[in-house]
């Protein structure tokens, strides 16, 4: 009953509206952001620029909602999605890592204690990939050598283009009009006005910092196992399982069990990261 009610909500519409707002607010925020002075320019938005805090908050939360509603949309239309071709399904599943990379690079770009550390961890994870790790890092992050240049490039261009390419066929079929969602838009604007986007300045003697919420489980896992396994193989295993999660598949049930176990374990690791080292 509750599942039906939740499934009937317009998650996809809300995700897309959030994307529109995220893109527009991203352009606004980008006017005052400089990758050469990432932390200064990001904190100046909050402190010095009129309404800068509001627009940063709007960009931050609309981006989070874009991802979260996207996940809810996937869950709500999973049965219907069985009718689309394998290729179309693959493209849509690949949208999720692309969305996460957009969120992640946004976190890194503010270059506060959390963002900088998350970026450096990502850099070390990529470096740990055998043979191509150095090239991957040089292409995607390379923060220790090039500062935020590459992260900025991929946040504002590469991952956006990749997302549009992957989701294009899906988006052109389902049109969403802003005027049909004025209540949702008002709620998002009000939320961003009241709740500030996080910013963690570097503090001397800081003993524990936690990364972005979706990165916490990974941060915890990196404590115990090698960066390549924790940072590359473990996330890829979930992605591969999601790609093959189709009802006509012979291994549908084992894959579903694997995905649920993966998510449960990740939740436990996230809780551990939040509670056991502070």
């Amino acid at each position: 009953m509750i599942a039906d009610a939740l499934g009937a909500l317009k998650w996809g519409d809300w995700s897309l509206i959030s994307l529109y707002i995220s893109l527009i607010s991203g352009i606004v925020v980008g006017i005052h952001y400089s990758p050469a002075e990432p932390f200064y320019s990001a904190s100046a938005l909050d402190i010095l620029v009129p309404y800068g805090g509001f627009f940063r908050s709007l960009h931050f939360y609309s981006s989070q909602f874009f991802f979260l509603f996207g996940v809810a949309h996937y869950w709500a239309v999973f049965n219907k999605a069985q009718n689309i071709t394998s290729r179309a399904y693959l493209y849509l599943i690949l949208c999720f890592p692309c969305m996460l990379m957009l969120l992640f690079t946004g976190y890194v770009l503010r270059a506060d204690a959390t963002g900088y550390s998350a970026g450096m961890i990502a850099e070390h994870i990529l470096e740990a990939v055998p043979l191509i790790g150095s090239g991957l890092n040089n292409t995607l992050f390379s923060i220790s050598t090039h500062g935020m240049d590459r992260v900025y490039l991929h946040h504002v261009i590469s991952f956006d283009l990749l997302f549009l390419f992957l989701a294009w066929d899906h988006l052109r079929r389902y049109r969403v009009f802003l005027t049909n969602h004025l209540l949702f838009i008002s709620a998002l604007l009000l939320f961003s006005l009241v709740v500030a986007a996080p910013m963690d300045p570097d503090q001397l003697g800081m003993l524990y910092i936690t990364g972005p919420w979706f990165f916490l489980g990974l941060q915890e896992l990196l404590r115990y196992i090698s960066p390549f396994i924790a940072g590359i193989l473990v996330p890829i295993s979930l992605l591969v399982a999601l790609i093959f999660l189709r009802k006509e598949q012979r291994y549908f049930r084992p894959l579903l069990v694997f995905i649920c176990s993966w998510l449960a374990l990740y939740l436990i690791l996230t809780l551990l990261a939040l509670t056991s080292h502070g």
Partner: protein
Amino acid sequence: MLWPLFRFLFHKVPRKPRIVEVSGTLQNDTVLTKQDFLIFKEHEQLWAVSRNCTHLGCRINYIEKENHLECPCHQSRFSIQGKVLRGPADKALPRYAVEPTESPSTYLVTIS
């Protein structure tokens, strides 16, 4: 076309050594904290250690009370000389040469 692109993307331009001028008063048993390194002075000896944790690169902090360095991401610990005291990090922190200049309270740190 792919090979040139591969070579281009995977080429790493070597970082040139940086000499950083640091201002600050440093007496025996004190520390100067900068964004990329910490400078220590003990028995008139000067040295700097990197603040990038050798585990995954997070910026480590000096814990004055216990006189050691600790990473806020996974709590690796290092001595002030940069040696590993507790994992998950398993490599010592890079050390940099520090030279006092002619003007008082100014030092040159060579980051290689």
